[in-house]
């Protein structure tokens, strides 16, 4: 079932900072709207897992990494700019 999902997303946040909270909400709503049923979103708290920051080359937070489909993309910020988030995720909207 999981392998069939097209979008693998990882969101890195820092606890409950305003940016993080906004980012979680924004990512969730965008995914629900555009990728419903076709995505997997993992959320990591970098405060809890500091070693992951080095492994994943994380500098700015919040960061959303699109692992799949390739190419891999990184989105930083609170994801409030929906158009940029969609562009970053490679989603073309036909409005």
């Amino acid at each position: 079932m999981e392998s069939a999902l097209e979008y693998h997303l990882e969101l890195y946040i820092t606890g409950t900072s305003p940016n993080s909270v906004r980012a979680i909400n924004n990512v969730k709503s965008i995914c629900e709207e555009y990728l419903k049923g076709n995505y997997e979103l993992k959320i990591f708290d970098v405060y809890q897992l500091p070693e992951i920051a080095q492994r994943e080359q994380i500098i700015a937070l919040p960061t959303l990494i699109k692992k799949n489909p390739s190419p891999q993309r990184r989105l930083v910020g609170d994801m409030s700019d929906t158009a940029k988030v969609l562009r970053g995720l490679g989603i073309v909207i036909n409005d």
Partner: protein
Amino acid sequence: MNQKKSKSLPDPTIGLLQKSPTGISGLDEITRGGLPLGRPTLICGSAGCGKTLMSIEYIMRGALEFNEPGVFMAFEEKAEELALNVASLGFDLEQLIKDQLVRVDHVHIERSEIEETGEYDLDGLFIRLGYAIDSIGAKRVVLDTIENLFSGLSNENILRSELRRLFQWLKEKGVTAIITGERGESSLTRQGLEEYVSDCVILLDHRITNQISTRLLRIVKYRGSMHGTNEYPFLIDEEGISVLPVTSLQLDTEVSTDTLTSGIATLDRMLGGKGFYKGSSILVSGTAGTGKTSIAASFANAACLEKKRCMYFAFEESPSQIIRNMLSIGIDLRGPIKDGFLEFHASRPTLHGLEMHLVSIHKKIKRFKPDVVILDPITNLITVGSVSEVKAMLIRLVDFLQNEKITVMFTALALNNTVNEQTDEGISSLVDAWLLIRDIENNGERNRGLYVMKSRGMGHSNQVREFIITSQGLNLVDVYLGPDGVLTGSAREAHILREETGLALQDQAISRKDREISRKRKVLEAKIAGLQTEFESVEEELNKVYLEEELKAEIQNKTRQELTERRIGKEAKNKVQSPVAKKK
């Protein structure tokens, strides 16, 4: 170093700023102890000036020499590349990482992969750095080059406020940090990092003059501490960075009254019979081919024979060339080299800039600790600097050597032959003793005349001596002052020969006369002997007559007696007969 052990934030109640020693030779002297402890320091400079190397050396030396773990956050190079780079300086980065003394975190940031979608901060960097620091208990942190963030992320406002927060955070962490920054057009760094790092700023430069590059270091600012303000040359070699502090130009060096022989006994006699003072500086100048190097080599050899250590910097010939050439005048330098008393360093002056030469000479002297240093010839240095620069460099060198009580001999090529115009890079006023060798051209040949122009603090000969180089060594002889002026070379020898001839002739004349007298005496003695013989024969003749007369008288007397007796008629005819026979 004891201060280091406290490893705490600088206590504001203590007036003096605590420092974190870098271990980089020379830098700690300039900064009076090192970088400000627990504060960020900015090292800036153009590409290739050694920022990364200096910062990694700070981390490596911290780990190795001061037992302080360090974190190196690289925004440009990967850990493997860094390990390779420092391996060339003899550091084993991999091992230090294994020993938990160093941590390298490579930050990869690629603009094309990143989409900025709103508000963000650099907490990721903080967390990474914090994790790295805490995991090994780091006291030293390097961020090389943090400005790369500006190329990866576009929101400058966020970056700037985050950087300010980062430096504040580093201070709170109590780590001593180095931030490197690329030099900008009009400011110290492209992104104006100097605004945030206000405690200590070190500027590295790479200057090229006459196609020769010199690395220079300057402390632009060091809040709360004294520091050297000059530009200091520094050198990157197989042992890392070494900075040359310009020695304090105070004239308070202690002096010695011990002397060192020059290796030429006759020259020592010209110098008050002892030679040169220990720790003094000697200049040997002269035109081409006058034997300056020979004097220098002879001095070096003499020092080595007295079990002194000697270091020979050659700027013109290779060591083997000098050794071969000196063999031809009976000086064998191979022995002292083998025994470790003599060390040669030959390099073309154009190898480095002047300052670099000074740094490398410093380093070599510090390592070898010689008693005697020879620079042959200093005039070649002029190819890499102006006269005044060479002079400034030599002043600093002499100053350093005098502090270390090292005797130094410079040789200098004089291009003109006029003593008054002769300045020899203007250092003749700097040196303690100055030997000048001049060509004396006469009778179609060239000879060398040696003068002692000056020799501070000792009576010295004012005479010009002829300087002779033979296969047995060097020698000085008195020049002849004849009716035709000063005689040197073959003219002098001819003069000596003439004098010797005259002496021989005179000797002969005297001995001939002596012989004549003795002959005359013999003749006279012979004559005396003849006369004596003559006299004896005459005397004998006379004696003979006298005896005959006596005999005759006796016989007559006897005869008369017998006759008388016969007349008396006593005895027979026999007695009468015998006197008759005798008579016949």
